[in-house]
Structures are given as C-alpha cells and as structure tokens.
C-alpha cells in the first residue's frame, strides 16, 4: 500500500524531530554494525578452514597400503601389501552406487626432457575421474580420457610450472617430450589451487604406466569421491565398511591400520563442520544478543517518543484519526528509521570488512571476511520486523488511550 500522504506525514514528523530520529536510528545502526563485523570475521575464519581443505574435492577418500603390522592367518608381520587392478575393480563393482568418482594412482618419479631442458618431476598415473578428485583445472588441451586408457597411449598432461620450466613462454601443447627414454605427447596443461607442488606434477594414463613399469597390474593407491548425496555419517560408514571388506579380501588383520587404511574426508569434514557449527552457534547467540539490545534500545526510544507525542495523537484522534491510522503512522516511521539506520550500519560494517580485507589472514587466521547476501537479507528482514515490533507495541498502547486523556497529557 503506497500512500503518498502518509509518507509525507512521516517525513515531516522525522524532519521536524531530527534529534530523536537520529538517536533512535543510531542505536540500530550500531547494533547492526557490530552484528556485521562479528559475522564477517567468523565467516573469515570459516573461509580459512575451507581453504585448508580446498586442494582436493570435499568428498574425497583414498585407500592406502603399506606393510602389515599384525600377523594374520599364518602370514607374518612386515609383509608388503600391494593393491592391484583386482581391488580397484572390486571397489568399483561392490560400491557402485556410493561412488561418484574413482581413480587409481601410481606414483613415479620421472625425468622429463624437452630439447636441452630436463628435470625430475613427480608423476601420477591415473584414470580420467582423477581430474575431479584433485580439482585439476585444465588450462590448455584436455585431460586423460578413456581412449587413452584403452590404447595405453603415450600421452601426458603437465602442470603449469613444468611447462614454465621446460618451455618458458613457448607453447607446450602437442609437443613431444622424452620420459625415461620414451617419447610422450603433451595433450594438456593444467593448474591446481593446491600450490606449487601440485603444479609440478605430470599425469599419464594408469594403463600406460603399468605397461611401462614392469608390465604388471600394480597400483599405488585408490582415490574415490563418495556420492555427494550421502550424509557425512553414511559416508563415514561407507569408508569403514570398505576398509573392513578390503582387509578381509587381502588377508589382512581386521585392525591393521598400517597395512591398509581408508582416509576419508568425510571424517575431517565432520570435525570441521562441528567446529564451525559451534562457532556459528556462538555467533548467532552473541549476534542476536546485539540485535536484541538494539531492538530494545529503539523500543525504549519509541516509548519515549510516543509518550512525547501522546497529545498530538489525542489531537489527531479528535480530528478524526482512527486508531489504526495512528498505529500505522508510527509503525511506518519506526520501520523506515530502522531500515535506513540498519542499512547504514550494514554498509559501514561491510565497508570496514572490505578495508580489513585479507590483512588479518596471517596471524589471525581470518581470510576474506565478508557477509553473504543471505545474511544481509536476513538482517534486513530482522530489522524490518524489529522496527515493526518496536513501533507497534507502544503505538498500539498510545492509540488506545482515550482522546481526552491524551489531550490532557503534556
């Protein structure tokens, strides 16, 4: 309902009573400012946590093997454990509906040579899904695909820094490099947010590596991305089950962590999630406390303001104002002041957060403190509602005072 006359009345009343409007606005602005800063700083903390885990996909899991530490079924301690394609396929078939991405990994250190430039780099032989598990960003060309796997192609995807080392500023795509005596075609260049080490990696198809290094079916590690529809608890249960099944299948003692273990990001996520949850609970508690203090502040001022205006309301009623029109006027004025003041507080808070920026990242573990649009929307709604309440309760009381009582007030 847009009533120009009503707005005119409100602006006149605000304008003619600037001090009290500014006073009531200030309370709200200050409360929202504190709220914004608090929320921004905590979201900065949360960003720091997230960035720590940002290298790999949030849902990643991997199966690692080493040496047995417990005797089992007549097998001795200290036996080396080797994953093979068999285990890879077992996982793939057994848990198909719980897995989003799956890749094997074979670790090798290789010497890569292009013309006169050569250096040693870490190499991972992988399946195509590995791109998503590692969050590899393809800058040029493409990643390894299923055809490469099938044909055991001698192709390689190199990190941005390998390209810089070997090719400088010249193009690397479709060039051939020499790896341990074989010629490989560069099919892609990638970058990775995980840091320099991740960008000095090279990827080749897992089948090519198996053929090149001993012509076997060994793999070093199985990497998985669990189905993101699984809850954290279900994902953790899945990891534990897979661990048990694989140990049983490979004749490993059920409790032998050293021989075979499944590392599950779901567990870490759960820990961080719980920590952030508690942190947010605290913030919501303190933040809403601040907001409530602000609301109480404006309510107090509104009570005072309305007391001061009781006589005016009495006059208006004698002239034919309905109680609802008095209440409406006061509430609208109060909502207007809270919204504007709250918006100012919010803007100031956001501005301060942007000034602080990343200067707190080192030492205070706060990265990119900011408030999300949802929080801004939420705070705005809270403001409008609090303006409504702050105005409505005292206005309703004032409007119900009998006109003669109101007229007698001074």
């Amino acid at each position: 309902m847009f009533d120009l006359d009503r707005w005119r009345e409100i602006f006149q009343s605000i304008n003619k009573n600037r001090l009290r409007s500014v006073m009531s606005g200030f309370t709200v602005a200050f409360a929202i400012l504190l709220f914004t800063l608090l929320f921004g700083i905590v979201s900065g903390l949360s960003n720091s946590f997230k960035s720590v885990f940002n290298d790999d996909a949030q849902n990643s899991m991997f199966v690692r093997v080493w040496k047995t530490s417990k005797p089992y079924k007549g097998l001795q301690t200290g036996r080396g454990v080797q994953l093979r394609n068999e285990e890879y396929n077992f996982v793939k078939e057994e848990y198909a509906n719980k897995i989003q991405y799956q890749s094997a990994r074979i670790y090798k250190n290789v010497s890569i040579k292009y013309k006169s430039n050569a250096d040693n780099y870490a190499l991972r032989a992988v399946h195509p899904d590995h791109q998503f598990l590692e969050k590899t960003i393809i800058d040029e060309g493409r990643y390894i695909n299923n055809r490469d796997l099938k044909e055991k192609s001698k192709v390689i995807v190199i990190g941005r820094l390998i390209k810089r080392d070997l090719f400088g500023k010249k193009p690397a795509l479709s060039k051939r490099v020499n790896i341990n005596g074989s010629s490989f075609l560069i099919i892609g260049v990638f970058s990775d947010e995980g840091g320099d080490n991740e960008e000095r990696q090279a990827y080749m198809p897992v089948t090519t590596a198996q053929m090149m290094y001993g012509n076997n079916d060994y793999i070093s590690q199985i990497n998985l991305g669990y189905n993101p529809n699984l809850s954290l608890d279900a994902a953790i249960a899945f990891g534990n089950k897979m661990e048990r099944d694989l140990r049983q299948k490979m004749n490993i003692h059920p409790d032998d962590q050293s021989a075979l273990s499944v590392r599950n990001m779901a567990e870490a996520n759960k820990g961080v999630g719980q920590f952030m949850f508690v942190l947010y609970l605290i913030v919501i508690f303190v933040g809403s406390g601040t907001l409530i203090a602000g609301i109480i502040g404006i309510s107090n001022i509104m009570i005072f303001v309305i007391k001061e205006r009781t006589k005016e309301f009495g006059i208006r009623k004698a002239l034919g104002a309905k109680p609802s029109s008095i209440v409406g006027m006061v509430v609208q004025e109060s909502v207007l002041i809270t919204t504007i003041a709250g918006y100012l507080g919010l803007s100031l808070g956001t501005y301060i957060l942007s000034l602080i920026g990343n200067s707190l990242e080192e030492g205070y573990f706060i990265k990119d403190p900011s408030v999300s649009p949802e929080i801004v929307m939420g705070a705005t709604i809270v403001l409008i509602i609090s303006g409504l309440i702050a105005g409505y309760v005292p206005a309703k009381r004032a409007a119900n005072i009998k006109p003669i009582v109101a007229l007698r007030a001074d």
Partner: protein
Amino acid sequence: MIKIEKLHKSYPIGKDSLHVLKGIDLHIKEGEFVSIMGSSGSGKSTLLNIVGLLDIHDKGDYYLNNQLVKNMNEKKAAILRNKFLGFVFQSFNLISYKTALENVALPLYYKGMKRKDRLKVALEYLEKVGLKDWANHLPNELSGGQKQRVAIARALVTKPKVVLADEPTGALDSTTSDSVMDLLKEINNEGMTVFVITHEEEIAEQTKRIVRLKDGIIISDKLTKVV
C-alpha cells in the same frame, strides 16, 4: 441535533467513584448557540467530552444527529467525529511542527481528501478567519488569538454539524476573546450549531441559550436576550 436523556457518568478514584454527571437531560436543535456554564467541578467538561465522543457515558441515552451513540468503538467514534464534530480547545491544540495551513488541512486528510484539494479548502477557511497571510507560519509564530482562529478554521473545515468549544477564550485577553466570540457568532449566523463551555458570564451572555450546571445536574436552562 444533540439529544441527551438521563445521562450519568462517574469516574473511578481509587476504590471509590466520583459521580460527575447525575442525570442530564438536554436537547439542542440544529442552529442553536448554546453555552454551558458552571464552576469547575460542575461536570461541564465531562459533558462536552461525552457530546464530543471523546469519552463514553455510563447510563442514559445520547443521540447525535438522530443516531444512538452506544457501544461506540474508537474507530466508529473517529469517523463520527470527523464527519459531524469540530473541536475548539482552550489550549488551541495545534500540532506544533505543522504550519497553520497544514493544521487546518489535517481533518481533511483523515477524511481522505486529496492533498491539493484539501490545501485549497484549508486556505479558504483561513481566509474566512482572516489569516490567509499567515498560512505558512508555524503555531509558535502566531499570537494566542491567531492560534484560536486557526483552531476554529480547523474545526470548520470539514463542514461539521456541531462545533464544540471548550473554554475557547480561556487563554485569551478580553479583546482577542471578543474577536473569537464574534467569529463563533458569525459561524452560528451561517446556521452552524455551536456548543460552548465557559465559566465567564460575559462570554455566556453572547450566546443564545445558557445552560447552568451545578454538581452534575442542570439547575437552569434559559434563552438570553440576544435572541
């Protein structure tokens, strides 16, 4: 226009109650110029408040414009006040942050008239009370008599059936009192019912009918020689 039968009103004072109006019968016809006289505590202000729908009575019947006033809620009362009644108070009761023109236009705002129209009408009424040149002044820039004339213009602007004036000259000196009374007489001559409350004999004598109140009952009801 106004018909009151056996009207009673009492106010609670602590545990007791103060019986202010003890059975008032009064009939005011359209176009009358009536004054209610009485010392303080006689119940004259209470009577005006009830007639003005600013307060509610306990017992008896009150007909305003042949309509029985009963179980009146604030909203209905507000509509009736706006439609039938105009108020003039002893302390003027102008809104301090509004100009004379805006004060006069306010009842029209509650009537739902457009801003342009109501300012035009309000200016006509200010002209009628001789304050056209003061239209854009705030109340604190006006003298007492001027304020009361603004208040009278405000009371008239909705073309009410009855103008209720509570000690309209109580805060004014005798010269300005006369000019205010002249204005009320002029309004009455145009056919408006005017209902004045006063404790001053010389004010009451300028009206056409004097009703004397004492301790909550009417002790005399006479036409004056003005008639």
